């Protein structure tokens, strides 16, 4: 049954919608113009201030020799290398502690989150206690405490402790091998890693718990009705469905972990922010160095978001 076509809009209606479109265009122009004006004013005042003070600007300093040592890192680096290589070494250090932290906090957080559903009340209580304790204390304080504990209780550099003959523990860190250049985990790295993983694991535990709780009870009951033991129920039925709920907030926790690794500058771990800080002070190029920090962290955030979006799509339930 055909319905009668609506009458064409009257001239007044057409004029009104045209006015609305013009108004919208004007507001957008105003917003863009205001932001552009602000950006232009900021840039011109900054450049003028820098000219007035004789502060030099430009990224050419990146090719000058850095002149400072970096205490540890995977990237081979000497003090005669250029600044850009120093920044790269700092980035490698950030990734080193960031990736290790992500792995550690995921494992620990999943165990704690699943532990909240244990049959044993003590296990449930311990998991709850851990989450409440580590969530409510600032990360900087946790890192500083771990650093204090490590530097107090590790044996002095001149009298290291040996475990199994080849692990050497001293205030220089945990070295795997007796030689001078054997791979070492310094107290700074350990303090940052412990602080980051234990803190983020508390948040991951809450996310995993919420994900598991969101899976309908019927699934677990049906799985036990099929005769699956509870460990396999968790692994084969519950967790895959919980992943859908877990992955988006987990992504933001990973991003937070990478951003929080910038606190390493307070305990002396030479990550990107620490190297940028040193370069800023040696060259005086505050604007450039801080821009580099922000750009690198933005790129890292984007990278992790893209990766996790892919994981999210894989975890999504393929509905017909």
């Amino acid at each position, binding site marked *: 049954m055909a319905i009668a076509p609506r009458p064409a809009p009257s001239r007044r209606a057409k004029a009104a919608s045209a006015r609305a479109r013009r108004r919208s265009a*004007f507001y957008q122009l*105003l917003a863009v*113009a*205001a932001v552009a*004006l602000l950006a232009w*004013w900021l840039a*011109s*005042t900054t450049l*003028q*201030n*820098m000219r*007035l*003070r*004789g*502060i*030099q600007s430009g990224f050419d300093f990146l090719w000058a020799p850095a*002149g*400072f*040592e*970096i*205490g*540890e890192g995977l990237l081979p680096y*000497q*003090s*005669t290398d250029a600044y850009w290589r120093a920044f790269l070494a700092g980035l490698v250090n950030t990734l080193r502690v960031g990736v290790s932290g992500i792995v550690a906090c995921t494992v620990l957080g999943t165990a704690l989150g699943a532990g909240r559903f244990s049959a044993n009340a003590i296990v449930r209580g311990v998991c709850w206690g851990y989450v409440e304790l580590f969530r409510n204390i600032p990360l900087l304080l946790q890192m500083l405490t771990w650093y*204090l504990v490590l*530097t*107090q209780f590790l044996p*002095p*550099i*001149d009298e290291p402790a040996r475990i199994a003959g080849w692990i050497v523990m001293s*205030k*220089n860190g945990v070295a795997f091998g007796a030689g*001078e250049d054997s791979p070492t985990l*310094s*107290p*700074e790295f350990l303090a940052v890693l412990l602080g980051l993983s234990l803190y983020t694991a508390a948040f991951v535990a809450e996310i995993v718990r919420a994900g598991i709780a969101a899976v309908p009870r019927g699934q677990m009951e049906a799985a036990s009705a099929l005769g699956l033991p509870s460990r396999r129920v968790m692994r084969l039925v519950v967790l895959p469905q919980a992943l859908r709920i877990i992955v988006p907030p987990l992504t933001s926790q990973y991003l937070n972990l990478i951003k929080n690794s910038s606190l390493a*500058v*307070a*305990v*002396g771990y*030479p990550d990107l922010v*620490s190297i940028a*800080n*040193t370069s*800023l*002070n*040696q*060259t*005086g190029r*505050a604007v450039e160095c801080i821009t580099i920090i922000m750009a690198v962290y933005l790129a890292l955030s984007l990278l992790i978001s893209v990766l996790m979006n892919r994981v999210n799509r894989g975890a999504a339930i393929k509905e017909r």
Partner: protein
Amino acid sequence: MSKAMARRRWIAVASACAFLALSAHAGKTLEAIKARGQLVCGVSSGVAGFSQANSAGQWSGLDVDICRALAASILGDAQKVKWVPLVSQQRFAALQSGEIDILSRNTTWTLTRDASLGLTFVGIDFYDGQAFMVPAKSKLKSARQLKNATICVQSGTTTEKNLSDFSRANKLNLKTVVFEQFEAANAAYFSGRCQAYTTDASALASVRSKEAKHPADHVVLPELISKEPLGPAVRRGDDEFFAIARWVLFGLMEAEEYGITQANVATLRESKDPVIGRLLGTTEDMGKPLGLDRQWLARALQATGNYGEIFERNVGPKSPLGLPRGMNNLWSHGGLHYAPPVR
């Protein structure tokens, strides 16, 4: 376009013009100080002997006394100073931005700092060098014995670069642990995390006297691995204030050379010696070219004494730091301080 929209456009344009006008105006430091009635002096947050506040908030030290002398010259009262404690990372930014008038914070004079940071050094008030401090029980006698050692340093200073140059030149393969904060670096050294601590020799003396539980347990190794001429700095572009600060410093040294002390300023006013007459403003007005009155140096000397007295009081052999005059003596006594004449 409607009246409201047109009005909004004009307001935006007018405020942009106002901001531009403000940014074209460059401040004159001397006028600002006189208008404010206070000299804003950037100092460190606590280096014994150079700038330190006691629990009542009273500041003392060599850098502090230089600022006091400057305040006495310009404003007539050595107490009219606002002290801004700065950590090393912020010190240049604070000076560049106008937050402080002068940076008197045991800062080393280097080419990079003079040429590319928008500031300029007034002179040298303390000749120093970088040295190492080690625990006495390590039985080290020389810095060249520090092979493969772990050294604590603070970031944002000339110390890092000097350390790596020294390490490379002597093939020591030193490992550095870099801390953001001075106090964190100290704490790490005293907890045993590092085998040595390095910074300017004067700062090492200060740390040892103030922060070590038993100062005798720590030893400063004899090598000075770099030149660290420390001095106050002001912003570029204000030659008037630069000249005043420079000549107050030189005046304090000249006064020591000619025997004018805090105690005898009053009596020496009667002196017939032409040099003393120039310095104290009794015979000639040396303040006029600087934009000050003729008593400018006399007031400074009455407030703080001459350079030698400032040194003795804050860092000299009888002070807790116990540093010898050494390089910091006048040229006529074998040291490096040679002030151009006040004439």
